[in-house]
C-alpha cells in the first residue's frame, strides 16, 4: 500500500494549572493514499488534539514526547518529519492547507465573520495554488459549485452569516479543498448539523473523496458514521487507540470490550424500540488516569489483579488489525 501518513508513538502533554497532563499516549496509526481512516471515541478521548498535532496546531502549553514520529509523504515525493518542523518553516506552511486540509465541527466559527467566503477561499488559493486575480476567483466559484452550493457566483461574495449551517459546512469543505490537499482531516464535520443535512454532507464528502482521490481522516463519536465512510477505523479511549483495523472486520468482530460497547450503543433501525445502551460510566479525566488499562474502570469484563496492574500492549491480530486488551492476550496465550 502507498503510505501517505504514518504516526508512531504520538504522546501529547499539556502544562496546566493543576500540573502536567498527558491526554494522548503512544498513539500510532497510518493513512494510505486515497483511503479513509475513521477515528472514533467519546468526548475527551484525544481525537482533536491528536489531529491538531499533525498540523502542529497545538497551543504553546502543549509538547510532544521525544518518541513521537510523524512522517508525511509530500506531493513532491519528499518525506516530511512533521514533529521536527519549526513554526516559521515554509514546509510547515505548505503542509498546512496545501498538503493537509482541515475542517472543523463548527462551520460558523471556522470562518472569520468579517471576510466574505470568497475572500478566505481566494487567500488559500493564492497561497497554495499560485493563482491570482480572476483565475483564483474562478477556482473558488468552481469549488463552491463542486460542493453543491447553488448560484456560486453570488455566494462567493457572501459572508458566513448569510448562509445556513449546512451551506456553511459545504463552503468550509470547499475552502479546505480549494488548496488541493492530498489528505483531508475532518473533525466531526457533521455533528453540529441536523440529521438530514448530516447525511447530505456525508454523501458529499464520500463523493468528493472518490473524485479527487484524496485521503481522509474522519473523526466522529458515532461508529454508525464510520461504517458508512471509513475504510479503516481506530477506536480511541482516554488518549490511546484500543483497537484498530479494517472497518468491516472491526464492526463484524469487535475484539475490545469498549468497541463492543460502542457498537451496542448504535440504535439499529430494525429494533428502534430497544433502548440505547451507552457504555456505562464516564470517561475519566486525563489527570486521573486509572492504573493499568485505562478502560478498566468501565469495563464489564475487567479482571482484578490483571487489568489494574499493567497497561496492555498493542497486539497485532491478522492483517492490519491490532487490539490493546489483556483479555485478548490471555485468550491467545491459552489457545
Amino acid at each position, binding site marked *: 500500500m502507498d503510505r501517505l501518513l504514518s504516526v508512531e508513538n504520538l504522546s501529547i502533554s499539556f502544562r496546566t494549572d493543576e500540573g502536567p497532563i498527558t491526554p494522548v499516549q503512544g498513539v500510532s496509526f497510518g493513512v494510505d493514499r486515497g483511503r479513509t481512516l475513521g477515528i472514533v471515541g467519546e468526548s475527551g478521548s484525544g481525537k482533536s488534539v491528536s489531529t491538531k498535532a499533525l498540523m502542529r496546531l497545538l497551543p504553546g502549553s502543549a509538547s510532544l514526547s521525544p518518541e513521537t514520529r510523524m512522517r508525511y509523504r509530500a506531493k513532491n515525493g519528499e518525506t516530511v518529519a512533521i514533529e521536527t518542523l519549526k513554526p516559521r518553516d515554509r514546509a510547515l506552511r505548505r503542509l498546512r*492547507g496545501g498538503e493537509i486540509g482541515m475542517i472543523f465541527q463548527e462551520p460558523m466559527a471556522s470562518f472569520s465573520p*468579517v471576510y466574505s467566503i470568497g475572500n478566505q477561499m481566494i487567500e*488559500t488559493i493564492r497561497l497554495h495554488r499560485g493563482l491570482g486575480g480572476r483565475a483564483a476567483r474562478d477556482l473558488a466559484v468552481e469549488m463552491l459549485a463542486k460542493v453543491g452550493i447553488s448560484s456560486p457566483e453570488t455566494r462567493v461574495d457572501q459572508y458566513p*452569516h448569510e448562509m445556513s449551517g449546512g451551506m456553511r459546512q459545504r463552503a468550509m469543505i470547499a475552502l479546505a479543498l480549494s*488548496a488541493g490537499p492530498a489528505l483531508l482531516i475532518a473533525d466531526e464535520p457533521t455533528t453540529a448539523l441536523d440529521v438530514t443535512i448530516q447525511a447530505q454532507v456525508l454523501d458529499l464528502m464520500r463523493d468528493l473523496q472518490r473524485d479527487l482521490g484524496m485521503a481522509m481522516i474522519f473523526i466522529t463519536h458515532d461508529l454508525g458514521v464510520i461504517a458508512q465512510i471509513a475504510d479503516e477505523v481506530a477506536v480511541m479511549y482516554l488518549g490511546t487507540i484500543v483497537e484498530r483495523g479494517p472497518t468491516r472486520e472491526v464492526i463484524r468482530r469487535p475484539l475490545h470490550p469498549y468497541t463492543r460497547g460502542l457498537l451496542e450503543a448504535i440504535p439499529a433501525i430494525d429494533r428502534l424500540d430497544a433502548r440505547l445502551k451507552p457504555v456505562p460510566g464516564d470517561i475519566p479525566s486525563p489527570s486521573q488516569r486509572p492504573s493499568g488499562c485505562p478502560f478498566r474502570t468501565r469495563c464489564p469484563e475487567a479482571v482484578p489483579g490483571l487489568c489494574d496492574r499493567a497497561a496492555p500492549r498493542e497486539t497485532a491480530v491478522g492483517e492490519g488489525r491490532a487490539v490493546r486488551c489483556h483479555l485478548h492476550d490471555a485468550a491467545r496465550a491459552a489457545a
Partner: protein
Amino acid sequence: MARFVLERLLGMVLTLFLVSIMVYFIMELPPGDYADRFAFRKYSGTGVTVTEAMIEEIRRDLGLDRPAYLRYFDWISGIVLRGDFGMAYSFLTPVTNVLGDKVWLTLGLLFATLLITYAVSIPIGIYAAVRRGSAADYGLTVFSYLGLALPNFLLALIMLYCANRWFGASVGGLFSPQFENAPWSLAKVWDLVKHLWLPAFVLAWSAVAYQLQTVRATMSDELNKLSVVAARARGVPETRLLVKYPARLAINPVVSTIGFDVNRIFSELPIVAAVLGLTELGDLLLKAYLDLDMNVAGAILLMLTTIIVVMNFVSDLLLGWLDPRIRMGA
C-alpha cells in the same frame, strides 16, 4: 452600505436637533438673564437708579422678551444658515470673534490626543496579547494600572516640571510668545505641534492605559477563536494571519468607544488646560457661565456636543465598514 450610512446620518441629525434644544434649555436655566447684568454694567457708578422699566427696555432691545421657542428658532437658524452664533453680550462683539481660534485649537488637541491614544494602545495591546504571560506583557499591565491610577493633572505637573527642568522648553500655552498673535504660517503650525504634544500626551495617558487593556483582552479572546486556528491550518503566514484575523476584530471595541473617549477628553480638558496654561474652550465656557453670557456658553456647549455626536457617527461608520454583520444589520 448606502442604506446603513443614510440611517446613521438621519440618526445623527435627529440627535443634533435634540442636543441643540437641550443646550438651549441649559442656556436658559440660570436665574435672571443678561438684561439685568447689562443694566448693572451700563449704569454702575453713574448714580442712576435702575428701574424695572429700564431693564425691560434693555430686554426688549436684546430681544430677550420674546417667547423661548422663537428665540431658540432664531438662534439655531442663525447658526445653521449663517454660522452666526449671536452676540457675546459681555464683549459686545459676535460670539465667533470671541471663540476665534480656540475652536480649532481645541479640535487640534482633541485629534492629537485621539491619534496618540490609538497609535499607542492598539499596537501595544495587540503585542501584549500575542506575547501573553511574557515579561513584556506583565510590564505593560503594570504600566497601564499606573496609567489608570495616576490623575492626569498630576501627570501634567510632573511633565511640566520635567520639560522645564531638562529641556528648558516653554511648554505652557499652545504657542511660543513670538507666534501668539502672528498670522498662520508653517512656522506657526510647527510651533503649535511642538506645544501640542505635551497636553495631548497628558490627555491621552489614561485613555491609552484603558484602551490598551481593552485591546489586549479582546485580542486574547480573538486569538483563541476557531477561525484563527482554521486560518493557520490553511497555511496563512503568522504575521499576516495575526493582522488579518484577530487584530482586525480586536480593534472593534476601540472603534465603538471613540465617542466615549472624546467625551472623556473634553471632561478632562479644563483641568489639564488650567495646569498647562492653555486657553481653550472649557476655560471660556466657565467664564461665560459666570457672566451669564449665554450665547457664548451656548455656542461652546453646542460645539462640544456636536463634536461628540459627530465622532459617534464616525465611530458607527467605521464599525460598519469594519464589520459586515453590523453593516448588514445582522
